[in-house]
């Protein structure tokens, strides 16, 4: 049992380590920063993967580029800016709120609101349709 658990644990770990290339980080802080950054960037080739997970050639190149930019002392924001200038907001898994992305950000909320208003209206209509005395019974102490 213990051994099976250990195996499962190790297999889970292997997913985390998947596509990270051997890059020479000077310390753990830098490594963690890199991993966090590439997890927030989308691979443009296999669009449902982030840069950290993707094994595409281009993702490898882009990881290297991110690493190099980090070595040059650029901030996370500057690195994201660098990629957005080339590939557009599409590379960000967390795109900025601006007129072009309003539908993306507020669309789902709007749909929920519309749905909720229908549910509320329907419940009220049914409540009204019930005989007045039947509704009153429950309200009695």
């Amino acid at each position, binding site marked *: 049992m213990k051994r099976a658990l250990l195996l499962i644990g190790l297999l889970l770990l292997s997913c985390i380590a998947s596509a990270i290339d051997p890059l020479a980080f000077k310390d753990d802080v830098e490594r963690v920063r890199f991993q966090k950054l590439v997890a927030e960037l989308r691979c*443009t*080739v296999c669009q449902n993967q982030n840069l950290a997970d993707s094994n595409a*050639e281009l993702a490898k*190149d882009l990881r290297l*580029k991110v690493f190099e930019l980090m070595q040059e002392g650029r901030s996370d924001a500057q690195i994201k800016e660098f990629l*957005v200038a*080339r*590939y*557009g907001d*599409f590379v960000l898994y967390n795109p900025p709120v601006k007129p072009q992305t309003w539908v993306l950000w507020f669309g789902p909320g709007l749909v929920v609101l519309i749905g909720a208003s229908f549910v509320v209206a329907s419940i009220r209509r049914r409540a009204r349709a019930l005989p007045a005395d039947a509704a009153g019974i429950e309200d009695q102490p």
Partner: protein
Amino acid sequence: MWRFLLPLGMAAALGVLLFAGLGIDPKLIPSPLIDKPAPVFDLPELNQPEARVSNGTLAGAPYVLNVWASWCPSCRDEHPVIEDLARSGKVRVVGLNWKDEPVDAKRWLAQFGNPYTDIAVDQSGRTGIDFGVYGAPETFLVDAKGVVRFKHVGTITHEVIAREIEPRLAQMQGAAP
């Protein structure tokens, strides 16, 4: 009556929306480079390794930059179209040999023909990243001032050239005195 028609209408509207969505290719990412100066590059020329291809050497007239590689099957598909464009003499066609081995690239050109006036070699893919290339083939139209005017992702066709590239070229020639 409304209780019946309203849900039906909403379902129909959603259906139309989703059906329209089917026609959109999610692989197409709009380029932020349009109407911006082309990224700076300075690369060796494939057939004359001592020569360079850069923004400077290409400035002065519009050019089409075709990103290709010998490993890319779609590049082979679009090759006759690129050749026709080059042969038409309407615009210079420059190649960007992307993430390729020069030996393979030369063999590919020897086999299929070389439509390019210049071929910049981007073996590391860094210039590709600067251009926002995410897969070959991709085709850019750059004007005489070095500003990117249009980008096509994927196999280019005669229709795309007639619809997107030729009108823009005519406009550029009209604008130039």
